[in-house]
């Protein structure tokens, strides 16, 4: 593998994104933009109830409406196996996925799909939805994770029994599974502590808030090929899901990923692909289904609401002796919350000799949760970092100094049974300690406006997995790049930069594109902060194969042995072949121009399954101003620090840090699903579900640390997820610093702040 040791010429620069022009001028095709001849419009009927038994569905009146081409229900899907498989980076149970595509005998949340209609126009399809007769038997909903765990709670799945490594429970429960981490002797650890802090925390269900809704268009060819155009993070995952739910051969399904208008984890699972495919098959026409904003909120995959308890003890000298953690995560209607990831990340930055963590995956009458940028970690880190902060305060220690006294180190056993390798938690916290922001004076404020500063340490483990890149050399010396990974963050540019750097060419020589499941090698979903890392490895491998093959072509031109040919990809002579037999030189382009006469097409292929990757620590510093009369919190200054390994394209990395921080600020102060007592979502729109805007967020300062992951050719770790993990914790600690009251709830809305102060 080529690891360039000289100064990079492409990596570390700030070129424009390869996809910038098409997106700026509106030429890029997103999911809802797909338009096919004879296309029909699909709409989905959704449950108005959070929990009910379906007594009867009668589509007769809808089918009779002029302009309706087809109506689909669960009866149009084959039975799916009650089998859970790892698809991409998540687990999928196909029976549950089928029931979440079209409800079977029960609806389990407000918005649960029941039927779908394809019609000549969108208006006719919507009219037809009102003509589908559904009879319900209402059941009591359960919306709160702790209520759902009670022995007498209404059951969502009568046959569900809690699974754990202790065995399967005898009685049915809404607790789908439980797990435990144990390290050392927590009781003994607490006995050694001089100070103990214990607090409970709650967080609301939150949505990724991507601007582009879920959208899919399905078309069947006469030969039985099903093509699905969709906005997704993982085309191959969607192909698997469609294959399983339709019971249709994988080889006859092509999934074409469109440009993606935001995903953040929420577009790993398909919601409209299968309904579109069923409607297309029944109607004999291509069918496009696009969710409305309300539908996206009601029935896609937000992140878990939680209840958490954290207890920690430390000595007077500032050493943590023990921790006890309880994490209860809402899974929504079907099992599969990110509680495992939350458990892996909470307190990951600290050396804690004695600890016990119990995690619970709990079903409630809400949409089945999905991945959301560092799934599960933002919630648990909010709880863990609040208790760390309180311990520091009780010990009279600076919060950063306390963290540094207990900071995680390489090789240290972790609570989850693993250990850290090549981490830089200490370097991250030292960067916070030395940052101008942390050392700047803070005017505390007077009267009703109080100011405070807080910090939070964050961790995400990142991912590797399978990626595929093809590089084809063109006769003009350019290289066409096709990657199987979906570009959700500008990665076609960062992957092309790694190919260019390895080839010793300028970025302008690389023409990157996304493939589909028919044209590209298998690639796992773009998630887990893996794409620039793992697909980058594939690009480097493909480039190395190109260089090796180009040696042979140059040797053929020079009539020498390939071993007599050398290629320079560094320095002023980069992109040049030399022949030791005759001392002649040829540029990459000159060799490329003669490909036709030396063997024809020349491709390099990189197919990798990256099995080792490096986690990333980050940290945030927040300054806030709290109005103690209204409870409103204003961010005055915000800083994000992160070890990224190597910033391939620093502007993109800074964008990830700022974007993740902005979403984290939303979790901290504004965002949360609101339900009435019967489980109806009350704020399924962007007016009532408030995302942070430019008016709410200060200019976020970024500091990039480049402590490389040694097993990547350029040291890349992965960037995208860690930035969202720490902001709510840092903000909560800053609010405490301002008003002297600890916050136990996300979002910290004005009402919650005033409640915590005992004012309302």
């Amino acid at each position, binding site marked *: 593998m080529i690891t360039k040791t000289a100064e990079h010429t492409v990596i570390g620069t700030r070129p424009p994104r390869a996809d910038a022009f098409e997106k700026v001028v509106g030429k890029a095709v997103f999911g809802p933009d797909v338009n096919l001849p004879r296309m029909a419009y699909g709409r989905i009927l959704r449950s108005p109830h959070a929990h009910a038994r379906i007594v009867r569905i009668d589509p007769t009146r809808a089918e009779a409406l002029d302009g309706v081409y087809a109506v689909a229900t669960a009866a149009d899907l084959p039975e799916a196996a009650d089998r*859970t*498989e*790892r698809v*991409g*980076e*998540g*687990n999928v149970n196909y029976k549950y996925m089928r029931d979440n595509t079209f409800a079977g005998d029960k609806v389990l949340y407000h918005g649960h799909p029941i039927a779908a209609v394809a019609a000549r126009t969108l208006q006719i399809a919507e009219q037809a939805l009102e003509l589908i007769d559904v009879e319900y038997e209402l059941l009591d909903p359960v919306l709160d994770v702790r209520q759902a765990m009670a022995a007498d709670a209404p059951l969502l799945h009568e046959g569900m029994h809690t*699974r*754990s*490594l*202790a*065995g399967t429970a005898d009685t049915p429960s809404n607790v789908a*599974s439980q*797990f*435990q*981490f*144990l390290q050392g002797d927590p009781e003994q650890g607490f006995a050694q502590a001089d100070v103990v802090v214990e607090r409970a925390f709650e967080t609301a269900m939150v949505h*990724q808030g991507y601007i582009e809704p879920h959208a899919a268009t399905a078309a069947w060819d006469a030969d039985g090929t099903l093509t699905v155009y969709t906005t997704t993070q993982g085309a191959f995952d969607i192909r698997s899901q469609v294959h399983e739910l339709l019971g249709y051969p994988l080889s006859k399904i092509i999934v074409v990923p469109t440009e993606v208008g935001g995903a*953040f*984890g*929420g577009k*790993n699972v398909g919601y409209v692909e299968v309904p579109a495919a069923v409607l297309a098959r029944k109607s004999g026409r291509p069918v496009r289904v696009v969710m409305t904003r309300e539908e996206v909120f009601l029935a896609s995959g937000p992140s878990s609401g939680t209840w958490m308890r954290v207890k920690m003890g430390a000595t007077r000298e500032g050493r943590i002796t023990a921790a006890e953690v309880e994490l209860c995560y809402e899974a929504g209607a079907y099992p599969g919350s*990110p509680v*495992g*990831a939350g*458990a*892996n990340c909470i307190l990951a930055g600290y050396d804690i000799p004695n600890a*016990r963590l119990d*995690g619970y995956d709990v079903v409630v009458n809400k949409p089945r949760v999905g*991945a*959301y*940028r*560092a*799934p599960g970690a933002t919630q648990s880190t909010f709880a863990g970092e609040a208790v760390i902060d309180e311990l520091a305060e009780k010990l009279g220690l600076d919060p950063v100094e306390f963290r540094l006294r207990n900071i995680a180190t390489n090789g240290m056993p972790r609570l*989850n*049974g*693993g*250990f850290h*390798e090549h981490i830089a938690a200490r370097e991250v916290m030292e960067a916070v300690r030395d940052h101008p922001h942390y050392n700047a004076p803070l005017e505390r404020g007077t009267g009703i406006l109080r100011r405070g500063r807080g910090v939070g340490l964050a961790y*995400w*483990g*990142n*991912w590797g997995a399978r990626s595929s890149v093809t590089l084809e050399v063109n006769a003009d010396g350019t290289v066409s790049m096709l990657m199987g990974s979906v570009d959700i963050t500008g990665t076609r540019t960062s992957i092309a930069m790694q190919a260019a750097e390895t080839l010793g060419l300028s970025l302008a020589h690389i023409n990157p594109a996304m493939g589909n499941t028919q044209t590209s090698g298998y690639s796992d979903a773009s*998630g*887990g*902060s*893996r794409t620039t890392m793992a697909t980058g490895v594939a690009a480097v491998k493909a480039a190395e194969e190109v260089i090796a093959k180009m040696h042979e072509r140059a040797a053929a031109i020079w009539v020498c042995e390939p071993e007599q040919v050398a290629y320079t990809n560094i320095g002023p002579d980069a992109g040049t072949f030399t022949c030791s037999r005759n001392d002649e030189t040829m540029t990459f382009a000159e060799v490329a121009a003669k490909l036709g006469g030396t063997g024809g097409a020349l491709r390099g292929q990189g197919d990798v*399954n990256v*099995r*080792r990757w490096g986690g990333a620590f980050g940290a945030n510093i927040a300054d806030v101003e709290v109005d103690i009369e209204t409870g409103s919190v204003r961010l005055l200054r915000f800083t994000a620090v992160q070890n990224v390994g190597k910033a391939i394209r620093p502007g993109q990395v800074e964008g990830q840090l700022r974007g993740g921080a902005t979403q984290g600020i939303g979790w901290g102060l504004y965002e949360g699903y609101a339900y009435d007592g019967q489980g109806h979502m009350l704020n399924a729109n962007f007016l009532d579900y408030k995302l942070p805007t430019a008016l709410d967020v200060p200019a976020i300062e970024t500091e990039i640390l480049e402590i490389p992951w040694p097993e990547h050719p350029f040291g890349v770790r992965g960037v995208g*997820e860690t930035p969202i993990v720490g902001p709510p914790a840092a903000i909560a600690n800053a609010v405490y610093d301002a008003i002297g009251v600890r916050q136990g709830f996300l979002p910290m809305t004005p009402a919650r702040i005033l409640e915590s102060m005992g004012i309302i």
Partner: protein
Amino acid sequence: MANVSVPSLMRDLTGGEASVDGSGATVAEVLHDLEARYPGFAQRLLVGDDLDPALVVVVDDRPAPLGLSTRVRVDSRIRFLPAVGGG
């Protein structure tokens, strides 16, 4: 023999031992060996004949995508961790 970390909720099967040794050329064979000596050991980790999809197996500190078929050495260290997804 390969060394297997025992998840805390399974230590009732091993008399409280946090790790036990098992013999075999693959993870499946090691589990088979442990099942014979600690009845229920493999059963709790499996769904049918496959590893519980809520778990991943880590052999010598590397995730083992082949799961139960992963080859192990006599000095290998085997751990079972919760499966984790990202966004």
